[in-house]
């Protein structure tokens, strides 16, 4: 049993940190690909990139990689920037200090302070990769410290629900963007490798399919692989498992709406076929995954956090 407000904060800590990691990985891969670009070749499409990280700034688009990093990593006014996500995660953690371990707090606080420091020093642009390593490591350490210092009860499960809902939606949206923007055929091999790397999936993909990169296999791997932790199927299975555990701990019994939605999403991915997905309307399918995630979020929120008081008063 947790306070509803605390449950909400834990969920958002999971989401915000996942979002921060996702954004910085996209930037990291993008900056790296940029170094391989032939002189005179067409530059990259900033507006498409910004929509991929779901934090397109309202104002003008960045014009070069340095501005892009400023906007997407450090701009506090951009609510989707990495710094804003880490700040929000930390702010939520501060409000649930009594529920998380001291080690978790100190790890998250250290990440926040370090980011602020790097921003203040202003030297990151000489070594952008150092900046992304800092954030990857900070987030991974937090996850490790969480798993090893926090009881694997309701609060821990809520962190996971947040993390994996965010991951399922983000991966699906990234694949969607790639299929809409690029031709199906591997005309641009670099782009498809870039997609895999943006999901930290290149090595795992190669082990599974060899280094022969084909769009349908990339889609299959990122959507339907059961073992790879950043695939949509894997994320959906974790969301379902965590929601089931929470239902059990809180005495809600099986079969709540959030759990059923998550189960259905998971099952559709368990039994999905990539040729069917790509053959029909991949955009509708991938967008549908995002909508499903939003529905799971709403259902969980209504069951555990914003339920009407009348339904819970003693008779």
């Amino acid at each position, binding site marked *: 049993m*947790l306070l509803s407000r605390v449950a909400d904060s834990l969920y958002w800590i999971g989401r915000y940190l996942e979002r921060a990691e996702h954004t910085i990985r996209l930037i990291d891969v993008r900056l790296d690909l940029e170094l391989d670009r032939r002189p005179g070749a067409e530059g990259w499409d900033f507006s498409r990139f910004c929509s991929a990280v779901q934090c397109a700034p309202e104002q003008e688009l960045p014009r070069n990689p340095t501005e892009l990093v400023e906007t997407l990593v450090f701009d506090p006014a951009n609510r989707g920037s990495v710094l804003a996500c880490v700040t929000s995660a930390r702010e939520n953690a501060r409000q649930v200090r009594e529920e998380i371990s001291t080690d978790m707090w100190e790890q998250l606080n250290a990440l926040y302070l370090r980011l602020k420091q790097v921003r203040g020093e202003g030297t990151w642009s000489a070594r952008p990769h150092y900046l992304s390593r800092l954030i990857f490591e900070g987030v991974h350490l937090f996850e490790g410290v969480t798993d090893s210092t926090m009881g694997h009860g309701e609060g821990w499960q809520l962190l996971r629900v947040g993390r994996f809902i965010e991951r399922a939606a983000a991966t699906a949206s990234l694949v969607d963007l790639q299929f809409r923007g690029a031709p199906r055929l591997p005309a641009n091999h670099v782009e498809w490798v870039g997609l895999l790397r943006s999901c930290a999936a290149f090595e795992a993909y190669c082990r599974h399919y060899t280094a022969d990169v084909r769009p349908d296999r990339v889609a299959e791997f990122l959507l339907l692989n059961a073992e790879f932790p950043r695939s949509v199927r894997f994320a959906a299975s974790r969301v379902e498992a965590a929601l089931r555990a929470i239902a059990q701990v809180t005495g809600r019994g099986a079969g709540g709406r959030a759990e059923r939605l998550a189960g259905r999403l998971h099952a559709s991915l368990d039994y999905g076929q990539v040729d069917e997905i790509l053959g029909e309307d991949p955009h509708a399918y991938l967008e549908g995954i995002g909508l499903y995630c939003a529905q799971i979020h709403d259902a969980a929120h209504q069951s555990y956090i914003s339920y009407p008081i009348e339904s819970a008063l003693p008779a």
Partner: protein
Amino acid sequence: MSLIVPSNASPRPSGELFSDYLLDAAYDEMFESTGAARPHCRALFDELRAASESGLSQRQMEADKAFLMQGITFTVYGDDQGIERIFPFDLLPRIIAAGEWRTLERGLTQRLTAINLFLKDVYHDQRILDEGVVPRQLVQSCRHYRREMRGVHVHRDIYVSVAGSDLIRLEDGRFVVLEDNLRVPSGVSYMLANREATKRVLPGLFDRYHVSPVAHYGQALLATLRALAPPSTVDPTFVVLTPGVGNSAYFEHAFLAREMGLPLVEGRDLLVHDNVVYMRTTAGLRRVDVIYRRVDDDYLDPLAFRADSHLGVAGLLNAYRAGNVSLANAIGTGLADDKALYAYIPAIIRFYMSEEPILPNVDTYLLDVPSDRKYVLDHLDSLVVKAVGESGGYGMLIGPHSTAAERATFKAKIEADPRNFIAQPTLSLSRSPCFIDGRIEPRHVDLRPYVLYGDTVTIVPGGLTRVALRKGSLVVNSSQGGGSKDTWVLAE
């Protein structure tokens, strides 16, 4: 041939880092007036004489970093880029000898026992007012007196469960009580965090002393709250109520909740139905039996007190009056830490306990007493005047440091509303050595021990020593340039 030049300057302690150390009339916590270290401070003094400036600076930095990493900070201004600062921590512990502590313990126990008897009496029989020991008018005009509490049964008559009285040490070395904090005293987390920091950065010094531990404060507080559980409850639920993350003491609220293993709730997490308090959890509503509240009376219940408060719980007062929930501290305890009522605490101790007060008060002039008022107005330049309802070092006139214009302003304020002011002689707070800018210099300190009143009275041996870090300053409040240091009570 060397010639020793006799000097009229006051004696100084020997040692390079102490070359600017001034000893004068103020009581020094570490040194006797001759410049020799007091017996219980000799080991610390030896360490400091042997220490280097860089070694101490290094330790100071480590301690500061530890506070920053733990998030023991306050925000200077609140935008997205709000700068977080740590509360200044002074490296050098303040040491209190075992015998001195025994007296403090007895005195504080006596004082809080009398205060609880007084609150019970005022909110029920009013014997002390009928007998004229405390003027009825004084009680009724107190801003923190709550008529709503007349005749309300408070479980076990424990009104004040947690008190944090401010003590100072006079020139002759006696501790006196400067004020009592009986509403929601704060700072105990710093007592604990300061000790943790000192253990990390000065571990060697602990070998040379037998320091009484303070780490069990959380357990002691929980035991104190247990005494408040309504008798009908079988397995009571305890919570800590905070105004929220925006409150400057939020760190402490979360810290204490964690130390006790209790949920930290905000007003919006609670609701009252049929005079029963519930909290909203993921498993539905759950009944709450005891609230350690860190929200002031004014903000507790918008139906009973300030209607514009979003921090409280609508209907809480009625649930409390119905005996369905206990609060620590009870509602209305602020009556007894009113700065004018303070002057009557010695009389209150004599009245209920038939004993002489063990810890004296500071002489206090009540400005609605005509003879006192005349004296004070004639001597504004040598007295300290305080507004009775203010805290945090605000609303004060420190006569010797004031300008004629400030004194004129205060004179007008006093004449307009004499009940709102008291005056006290300007006291010289004791000084304790502090590590400041690479030197060791004396700074004024006070002491706030935390007194817990449940089945028994528990005073964890230690407290918060606040330091006026600005040279010459007498104001120790953190909002006004104050810091704090670890406080060691030596075991017998």
